[in-house]
Each structure stands twice: as structure tokens, then as C-alpha cells.
């Protein structure tokens, strides 16, 4: 049950006037008002929640963005920024009385700066597009969310996106060094840049992962890394997920930080193997894929070290890739795990909690118990190095009540993550999906302090309201740090 801020009837009543005003700012096809065309924006990657925006605006210049935001602030109109719409947490879910601000026209790579190993790009450039643009120079952009073909760097900044390589190379926040943003006041501000550690408060650090609630990103400067000369993958089978988890801990304790380290449970392994025929062993309870990258001398040395550790942790099978084709084959199943699970179930719901890795066996045991309680199965894939779980809850939306059961199950899994010392989301963001679970991790003071930051950027509460925080509060009241007076009523959201 997700409730969104109640639509402002006064704004809705002025729709025609607002469209005319926006057309003066963004001429031509940049203002979308037709219902059929608006349908394209009705949801993001969290497809269970849908809502048509009042209007979509697709600006193509920073000046237009600034003018749109100024107009919205002056007229008390809510704004939901959107990149490619791949968010899995509903970060770009529209509002019935809001403007959907699509940044898809900001597609230019503005500068590739080799001496400083960075690139300056517009926010609508895709994550993979950056790496492709600099591959010829032997460089790449490290964070690699699984949606990297489609997702944009602007959306990555909003969500602080991760990927399989982030244990070694960091999340978006560790690889973005500068942004240009437009504030709700229409001011254009630069945070960070090509230099190290900008002066003053690290507002760049606060902006990354702020889920589109602090400002609209109009330019991004990313750090580029030289492509590792070699990468090899190991595919290791274990008789239990616990022994696979122990092996991961031992690898790290031995001082090795692999480029990627992924575990799949039996159900996920079987689904992936049936889909892509990667040669995964089907007689194991858990499959661990470890990728080591660097110079050949280092990779060969570490492959031997990891093989040795695996044999000490009950590994029942172990193969190291000997060619690039084989390495990619090992990964093919893991990378196709989500669609593979989609083949064995009409629908699935992807969760994203992080736990201390040492609690993995207990968490999996309790999830198995929950499977009984909810009558739904779970396939597990996880970024094992950093304890980031992606349980995939299998359900059938056509069966009455199953979506609700899947969501309740998911919420229980996330509560369990917090209970064992983990967090609600490792890389997908809070959005609308986990918004109402925030009080399991944070008390009223913690949340009020976060909202005080929001108020410094957006005191009118117009940028992406209804996301992240379970209760909206008015900034003037926040000054007293008590938010019970600030609760706003939420209507039921239409659901499909």
C-alpha cells in the first residue's frame, strides 16, 4: 500500500494554462500532454506502481531546466525528474498533479579529458555509453549497474547506483567528481569538478543518492579508470550457501578484493543454466563466481590463491576461465539471472537489502521459513563481497492477493536485513518502494535531520515529493524538529 501526496486540485484545474506556459519555455514537442504519449512515463522499473503525470516536459538546455523549475516554484507545481526510467524503487514514479521532467535529450558527451582521466557528459548519456566512448583510449567508467545499457548517468547520480564491481571500484558516489545542478530556485550551481575534494561542505556527496529530491542534474563529470589488462573468472560450487559465504569471507580475510564476487543459490543457478547453458553445476547448493582483474601476473597469482581457499572451504567443483570467451560464459548466467527467473515464474519481485555477510546463513534460513509462511518461493542472487542480497520473490500477479503477499514478504525480508545489522537498500534506492520501511532503520529525529537537508535545497517540498520519507514535513515546522504536525494526508494510489 503506497500512498502518495494528495493531488493539488488548484494545480490540476490550471492544467491548460500550465501547458501553455511550459510551451513558451520549451517549444515544439518538448511538452507532452496527450494521454497516449504520457503513458510512456507512467512507471519506471518498479512496474507494479503506475501513475500518469499531469504533463511531461522534455527540455534540451540547462536554461530551459532553470526556467521550468522557476516557473514550477512560483506556481507551486511538483516536479519528478526522470532519466531512462530504470529505477527499481519507483524513484521516477510520476505524480498526478506533477510535471515529469524527462532529461532524455541531454545526450551529449561534452568532453573527454585524457590528462585528467575524466569525462564531462550530459545526464542523459547512458552508463555504458560513457565506457564505450573512451574504450579506444583504454579507459572506462567503473560502476556497472545491470541496467547499464539503458540507465543514464543522471539517474545513476540520483540513485548512487552500484553494480557487480563496486566492492573494488566503488559506487557512483566514489566515481563522480563533479556535477552541475539546477536548484528549485532556478539557480545553476557547480559542485566539485576536475580537482580533488572541493571546498566547503561536500554537497556533491549529499546530492549523489538523493533520489532527485535536492536538485536537477544537468551535467556530470566522471572519473575514468584504465581498463585492467586481464580478467579471469572462477566458477566454484559449494554444498551449502553457508560454505560459499565462508569462502567469500576467507578470500577477503586473505587480503584479496576481487573485481566481482557473486553467489547464486540452487534455484537461481538452475534457472540461469536452463536459460543460457553456461555450464553451471546443477548438483551444488550454491555457486560462487569470483572475478579477478589486473595485470596477468597478479590475476594468475590470485586465481591460484582463491582456488586454494575454495578447496579449504568444502568446494565441490572449481573451474577457472582460460579464455575471454569462457569468462564471459561464466558471467552470462549470472547476468541473465533475473530474466532467467522470469522464465520460471510469471512475475518476480527483486529485493535489495544488505547484511553483514557473517549473518548470511541465518538470513537464508529465515527466508526459507518465510517461504512457507507466504507460500511463495525465492531465488537468491547476491553481491557476496559486500553482503548485498537480491532475493527474487516469485509470484503470479494474475492470482488474487499474490502481489500483496509478495510485497509483504519483501518487506519482511528487508526488516530482517535491518534486524541483523544491515540496511534496507544496498543500491536500488528507497524511492516509493521502501519509503514506509524507513522507520525500521531511522527514528523520527534521524529522518527529520535528513529532511532538514532537503529543506536547505527545496523549502517548498516540490522536488520529487512522496519519495524516501514516509511522512512529508513542512520546512517551517521542521525548524522545531517535531514533525507530528507536518503529516500530510495521502490518498490511495491507483495500482495495476
Amino acid at each position, binding site marked *: 500500500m503506497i500512498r502518495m501526496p494528495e493531488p493539488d486540485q488548484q494545480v490540476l484545474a490550471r492544467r491548460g494554462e500550465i501547458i501553455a506556459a511550459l510551451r513558451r519555455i520549451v517549444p515544439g514537442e518538448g511538452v507532452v500532454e496527450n494521454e497516449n504519449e504520457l503513458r510512456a512515463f507512467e512507471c519506471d522499473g518498479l512496474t507494479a506502481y503506475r501513475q500518469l503525470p499531469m504533463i511531461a516536459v522534455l527540455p534540451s538546455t540547462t536554461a530551459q531546466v532553470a526556467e521550468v523549475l522557476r516557473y514550477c516554484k512560483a506556481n507551486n507545481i511538483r516536479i519528478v525528474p526522470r532519466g531512462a526510467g530504470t529505477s527499481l524503487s519507483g524513484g521516477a514514479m510520476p505524480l498526478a498533479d506533477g510535471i515529469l521532467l524527462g532529461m532524455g535529450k541531454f545526450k551529449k558527451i561534452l568532453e573527454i579529458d585524457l590528462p585528467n582521466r575524466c569525462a564531462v557528459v550530459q545526464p542523459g548519456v547512458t552508463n555504458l555509453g560513457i565506457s564505450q566512448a573512451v574504450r579506444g583510449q583504454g579507459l572506462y567508467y567503473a560502476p556497472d549497474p545491470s541496467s547499464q545499457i539503458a540507465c543514464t548517468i543522471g539517474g545513476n547520480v540520483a540513485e548512487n547506483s552500484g553494480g557487480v564491481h563496486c566492492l573494488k571500484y566503488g559506487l557512483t558516489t566514489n566515481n563522480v567528481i563533479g556535477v552541475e545542478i539546477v536548484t528549485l530556485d532556478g539557480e545553476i550551481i557547480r559542485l566539485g569538478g576536475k580537482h580533488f575534494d572541493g571546498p566547503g561542505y561536500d554537497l556533491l556527496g549529499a546530492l549523489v543518492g538523493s533520489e532527485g529530491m535536492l536538485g536537477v542534474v544537468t551535467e556530470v563529470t566522471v572519473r575514468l579508470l584504465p581498463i585492467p589488462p586481464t580478467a579471469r573468472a572462477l566458477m566454484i560450487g559449494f554444498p551449502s550457501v553457508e560454505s560459499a559465504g565462508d569462502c567469500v569471507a576467507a578470500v577477503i580475510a586473505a587480503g584479496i578484493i576481487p573485481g566481482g564476487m557473486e553467489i547464486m543459490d540452487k534455484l537461481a543457478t538452475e534457472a540461469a543454466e536452463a536459460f543460457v547453458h553456461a555450464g553451471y553445476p546443477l548438483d551444488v547448493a550454491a555457486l560462487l563466481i569470483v572475478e579477478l582483474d589486473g595485470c596477468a601476473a597478479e590475476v594468475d597469482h590470485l586465481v591460484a590463491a582463491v582456488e586454494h581457499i575454495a578447496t579449504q572451504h568444502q568446494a565441490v567443483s572449481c573451474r577457472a576461465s582460460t579464455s575471454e570467451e569462457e569468462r564471459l560464459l561464466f558471467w552470462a548466467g549470472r547476468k541473465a539471472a533475473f530474466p532467467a527467473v522470469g522464465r520460471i515464474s510469471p512475475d518476480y519481485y527483486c529485493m535489495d537489502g544488505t547484511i553483514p555477510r*557473517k549473518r548470511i546463513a541465518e538470513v537464508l534460513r529465515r527466508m526459507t521459513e518465510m517461504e512457507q509462511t507466504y507460500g511463495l518461493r525465492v531465488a537468491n542472487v547476491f553481491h557476496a563481497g559486500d553482503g548485498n542480497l537480491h532475493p527474487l520473490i516469485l509470484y503470479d500477479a494474475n492470482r488474487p492477493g499474490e502481489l500483496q503477499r509478495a510485497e509483504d514478504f519483501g518487506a519482511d525480508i528487508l526488516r530482517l536485513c535491518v534486524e541483523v545489522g544491515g540496511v534496507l537498500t544496498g543500491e536500488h534506492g528507497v524511492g516509493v518502494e521502501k519509503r514506509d520501511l524507513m522507520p525500521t532503520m531511522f527514528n523520527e529525529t534521524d529522518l527529520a535531520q535528513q529532511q532538514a537537508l532537503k529543506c*536547505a535545497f527545496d523549502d517548498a517540498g516540490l522536488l520529487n515529493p512522496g519519495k524516501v520519507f514516509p511522512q512529508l514535513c513542512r520546512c517551517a515546522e521542521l525548524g522545531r524538529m517535531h514533525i507530528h504536525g507536518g503529516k500530510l494526508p495521502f490518498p490511495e494510489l491507483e495500482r495495476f
Partner: protein
Amino acid sequence: MTLYQPGDAAELAAIISASASSGETLSISSGGSKRRLGRHAPTAATLDLSRITGIIDYEPAELVLTARAATPLAEIEGLLASRRQMLAFEPPDWRALLGHTGEPTLGGVLACNQSGPRRLKAGAARDHFLGFSAVNGRGEIWKAGGRVVKNVTGYDMCKLQAGAFGTLSALTEVTIKVMPRPETARTLLLPVTDATAALTLMSAALNTPHEISAAAYLPAAVLARSRVSGALPAGNGLVALRLEGPAPSVAHRTDALEATFGTAARLVDGDSSTLWAEIGAVRPLLGNAAIVWRLNPTPSRAVQLLHALAGQFASASFFLDWGGGQIWAGLEPAQAGPDAGATAIRAALAKTGGHATLFAAPDELRAQIDVFEPLSPALAALTQRVKQGFDPLGILNPRRMYKEF
């Protein structure tokens, strides 16, 4: 001057709450080693957090450590070393630079986003800051982040606290990401004729996939003051490149770099770590200049900045770290003038991009001059609104960062 010494977060909250009621301004301190970093802005009382100490949890295999904020850095680093781990951002020892002998603490390192030579490859202190508990300027205990290495739940308040110099909240407990200590380290020393050649070399080397973990340029004049100078080749100056990792990897990468950039002298083990500790501590400039600036230009434009400064301050001594992204510059007071050189330095930086911090200078100068780079009007207004959201009465380290608040 009033001195408060709370023993835990609850006592701290009570003190700050009382100070908020009376408008009493507070200087936050524990070991005091960085008391002379930032603007000189005396307060009515000192909040000494040094009793809020002790390591709470350390899980080497989880790569996380949780400690009370005033835990001595030496205690943390000792424990990490015993498990062959480290703080990858290599916090430097600035005590000699800042003229103070106090004990550096983990909270202080994070509050000042204090990062050393490996910042080039491993990121800054802020990149390793995972979660915390703190008391804000209203005397309320609050927390953010988590105790796991991967977390995007809510705004990333750790980044905001790192480098806020205690002006937003007083940290009481922090969780950091720790990393394995490299099995071996080796520093290659390549002779260069001048800063231009040094910068070209560093940029080319950092564009190779050989994973250089630190890159510095030391002109001859400052080289002579290194404790390892006996092990260094003579010449105009040296570029130092550090390689870390498993022994076969370091050997391979050494060969690869030498094949491209020529034969290099090598520092290993103790000499290598001594050199980089000196660079982090700015030791090559100590005793030679009363005023020390830290300049962070766009790395490729460091030479342009140096040329601009050479015109103004002929006898300035300097060296480069972070592949040119950090210049430490020492000035004589007479040469620097009444503004410690701020006007000339910042005019030069306006052309190259980046920012400058007045690091070591007498209190009187740090009371008058903008220690941190002045912000644009829009950014300054935003910064002040952020400050008010945490400390509306302006009692936590007021005017430590900016004259106005």
C-alpha cells in the same frame, strides 16, 4: 574558558542542549591535533570529546570497523595492522605542520576529510565513511548510514559530515570501511628536469593500467630535506610512483613502467613508507616556511598554476602530490604579504580551476583571511541554509569555516 568533558553521547547531548538554550558557542576538540586548522575563531567554551573513546566492533572479513569518535587513530591503525588491514585513504600526520602535539583521533580525521597520498587511487576519507551517530546543534542525538559497506538508504549524510570541520554535528560514533594492506609496496623514482616534465610523466603513468597508488613530484630543494634523501638519486628533482600489491604483480608492473619511462631507482619497505609518510605530513616544507598553502587545481593545469605563483613568490618552495592534483606551497611571511598570499593565489586558481586552503599560518592571519576557498553567492547561501538545518543557533565551531557563520 569553560571546558566540558562528556563521557558519552547522552552527556554530550545534554551539554549541547544547554548551550543551545543559552547561545554559548562551542569549539569541538578531542586530541586537539588539528585545532589550528581552519579559521581562528575563539568560542565561549570548549567541548572536549576525548572521553568518548574505544573501538566498538571490528570485523576484518566484513571490512568494517566501528569506534567511538575520539578513539586515537594510532589505536585504530595498530589494530588494523595486526589483521593486515589499513585505512586505505592513508590519513597523514599533520601535527608538525600545524604545530600541535595532540593525539589525532578517528573522528577528527573524518571531520576534516583528512586523506594522504593514496587518495589518488583509493579515494578520500569521505569515501570510506559508512555511518555515524552524532549530536546536532540542538542537542539531539541522531544517526545516519549503516554498518555495512554498501548502503544507499536515505541521503548520504556521511559525505556531508566529512570535511564539515564539526560545524554541523559532533560525531560520537563512526563506522568506516577498511581495506587489506598490500602485501608489498615499492616506490619508483624517476629523475625529471622540471615540473612540466614531472606532470607529463605522472599523467602518462596514471593513464597506464599499472595501478599506481601514489604519484608525487619532489623538486631538488625539497628532496634534500627527506629522511631518505641518502637513498635518493641526485638531480633536479624526482617523480615518485608507488606500486602496491602481491609481489609478482608489483614486479611485473615495475618492469612495465620501466620499459615505458626508463630505469628508475627504487625504494622498498621502510624507505618507501617513510617517503610517503613524509609527503602526507608535508615534511619537506617544514622549518622552511611559516605559511603553508594547500592548492588543489585541475591536475593537468598544476604547472600553469606554479608558473603564475613563481611570478609572485620567487622563493616559494613547493611539491606536488596526487599526480599534480595537490600542491603544497610554502611561503615566507615577508614575501607572502599581509594577506598571506591569498589574493594572488586565488587569482591564479581562478584561471586553472580548483581551490586553495591556507593550512599553516599564525592565528592572526587565520582570523582575517578566508582559510577555505570563498564560495559563489548562490553556493554560500545554500551552504548557510545547510548549516542552519543542523545547527540553527550557530553554536558548533562557529566561523571555523567561514567568517559569516
